[in-house]
């Protein structure tokens, strides 16, 4: 049984999606229990798998029993074992949140919503698990196709945003596919570990084909993860999507794609090629600096709450790309720790924003007056997430920034240090502006009471919304407090990549 863990993690949501699409049309009430059971099972097995990996090192699962390089294999090291838990936890919490949110936003399409939701989770889990470059392309497209449909379910603006996402997303995936083709020309293999060994063993580092493959794969993945200036599709798509959709897309898609980039850099091309042979590290880190600064400034210009959060994601992608490309172990640990913590921070912010919009129907920041009094617990969650985005200890945001900044100092990249501090200051302005507006009630008490009567819903959101929000907020503190355990796991994975202290 324990050998089959990787397959169970992927197949539970896949079969549940089939079950929901078959049964949901007739008996709508069975959707939710199936979804929760499947995601719960995946989460439990992921935790067990992390235990296995932490104790015994890498786990390799051969699909159909075919050995490498003939068959497709799942390869689980501490990095993706950690990410599996993140994906399953975030999707489980969002599923609980969607009990009320989805029934209000897309009441006539519940079975379709849950089918697509489960397929999206399947795609993301597959991207995390797989050790095969072409298989990865298919799973990227599974995750993307479902998210196009999920986004388009909602308002008029969302449909247009989804169309732009279709065009950009297809471009990204096609560039990736082309890059894999060039790798296949030179190595004759599609297995990631195998390609890496062939590149190292046959002295292909000088080959132009490999260089083109790397560039195509990077551009493709950068489009998919919305790395500035390729982020055009993200803000509208995530801001206008239904809230239970954006709660699962915003935290996961960009982070899983960052993980895919890490896998490509470390396992397929190898750190020696990327950092020592090509010496691209300073260029990409400067691109990340621009992404961080631009994302933060664009966030500052937004008045719509969800839109502001989407631009913060663009800035956060800059953090992670910069950290990974810094070419030293501390910054890499910081970047991957940030992948984990940013998934929960983004989830917490989007859950809180979704709950606020659900209760008050208001989308812009100036309309948020007096929210601390009307819905105190929601705002507690929002405040913890905001403080974590700013980087206040003991939230996880502080520790990831700490590792990223010390890594940048080790590498002597002061531009990145300045950009990170600048972005933290902007975050402080952004969130304290919201806290200020929300903390002080409206000046005229009569007007407010009249408004409460007209909006109808006031006070705390239902327990199925508040619960996930508070659990996520608690996770932010827990990830911060147990940062040493997570960092040890990441370091264990880094050691298998070979010499990561490549420069300096």
């Amino acid at each position, binding site marked *: 049984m324990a050998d089959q863990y990787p397959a169970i993690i992927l197949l539970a949501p896949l079969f549940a999606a089939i079950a929901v699409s078959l049964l949901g049309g007739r008996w709508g009430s069975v959707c939710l229990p199936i979804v929760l059971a499947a995601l719960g099972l995946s989460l439990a097995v992921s935790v067990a798998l992390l235990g296995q990996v932490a104790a015994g090192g890498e786990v390799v699962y051969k699909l159909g029993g075919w050995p490498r390089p003939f068959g497709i294999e799942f390869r689980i090291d501490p990095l993706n074992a950690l990410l599996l838990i993140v994906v399953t936890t975030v999707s489980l919490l969002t599923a609980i949140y969607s009990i009320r949110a989805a029934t209000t936003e897309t009441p006539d399409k519940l079975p379709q919503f849950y089918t697509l939701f489960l397929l999206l989770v399947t795609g993301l889990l597959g991207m995390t698990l797989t050790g095969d470059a072409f298989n990865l*392309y298919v799973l990227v497209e599974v995750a993307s*196709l479902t998210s*196009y449909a999920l986004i388009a379910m909602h308002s008029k603006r969302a*449909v*247009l945003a989804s169309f732009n996402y*279709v*065009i950009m997303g297809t471009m990204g995936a096609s560039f990736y596919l082309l890059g894999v*083709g060039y790798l296949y*020309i030179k190595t004759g293999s599609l297995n990631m570990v195998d390609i890496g060994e062939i590149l190292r063993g046959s002295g292909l580092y000088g080959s132009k084909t490999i260089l083109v493959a790397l560039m195509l794969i990077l551009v493709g993945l950068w489009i998919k993860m919305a790395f500035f200036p390729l982020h055009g599709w993200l803000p509208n798509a995530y801001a206008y999507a239904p809230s239970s959709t954006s709660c699962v897309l915003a935290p996961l898609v960009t982070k899983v794609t960052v993980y895919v980039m890490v896998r490509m850099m470390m396992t397929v091309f190898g750190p020696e090629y990327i950092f020592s042979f090509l010496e691209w590290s300073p260029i990409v880190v400067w691109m990340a600096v621009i992404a961080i600064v631009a994302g933060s400034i664009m966030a500052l210009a937004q008045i719509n709450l969800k839109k502001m959060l989407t631009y913060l994601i663009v800035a956060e992608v800059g953090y992670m790309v910069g950290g990974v490309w810094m070419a030293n172990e501390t910054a890499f640990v910081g970047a991957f720790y940030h992948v984990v913590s940013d998934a929960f921070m983004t989830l917490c912010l989007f859950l809180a924003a979704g709950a606020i919009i659900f209760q008050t129907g208001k989308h812009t920041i100036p309309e948020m007056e007096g929210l601390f009094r009307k819905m105190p617990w929601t705002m507690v969650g929002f405040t913890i997430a905001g403080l974590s985005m700013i980087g206040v200890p003991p939230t996880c945001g502080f520790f990831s920034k700490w590792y990223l900044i010390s890594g940048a100092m080790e590498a002597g990249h002061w531009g990145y240090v300045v950009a990170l501090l600048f972005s933290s200051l902007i975050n402080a302005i952004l969130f304290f502006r919201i806290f200020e507006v929300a903390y002080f009630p409206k000046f005229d008490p009569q007007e407010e009471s009249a408004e409460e009567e007209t909006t109808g819903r006031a006070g705390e959101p239902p327990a199925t919304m508040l619960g996930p929000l508070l659990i996520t907020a608690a996770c932010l503190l827990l990830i911060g407090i147990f940062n040493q355990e997570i960092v040890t796991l990441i370091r264990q994975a880094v050691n298998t990549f070979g010499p990561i202290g490549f420069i300096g």
Partner: protein
Amino acid sequence: MTVTEFIVSRLNYWIYIILMMIGLFAMISKKNLIKKLIGMSIFQTAIILFYVSLGVKEGSNIPILEHSVSHAAEHGEIIRAEDYANPLPHVLMLTAIVVGVATLGVGLAIVQKIHKEFGTIEEPEILAKIESGDG
């Protein structure tokens, strides 16, 4: 190597790059949403063409063995990989075609919904409607 040789010896690459650029141009610059999707299809087909051309070898046959391996061994025939076209890129493209069809289907469904919501599929007109607060 002359310029002609340079082009002719890599003809499959040139064709796929030209097709891909036509597709990319349509995706970026066309204002009609259906034309954008047509561009997307051309773009994906160019990549499929690239992969298919990878498997081709000069003077090679379809990758099906005429007799079993044991039969060949008995008669002293040698099965050589270079006699057969590489089937793997072709098999991969079967999957990629499926993905392309699915993407096109989702894209067309979204365009249909856009037409229902906005009454047009010309991008400038849709943007004008959103600007005027109709969105």
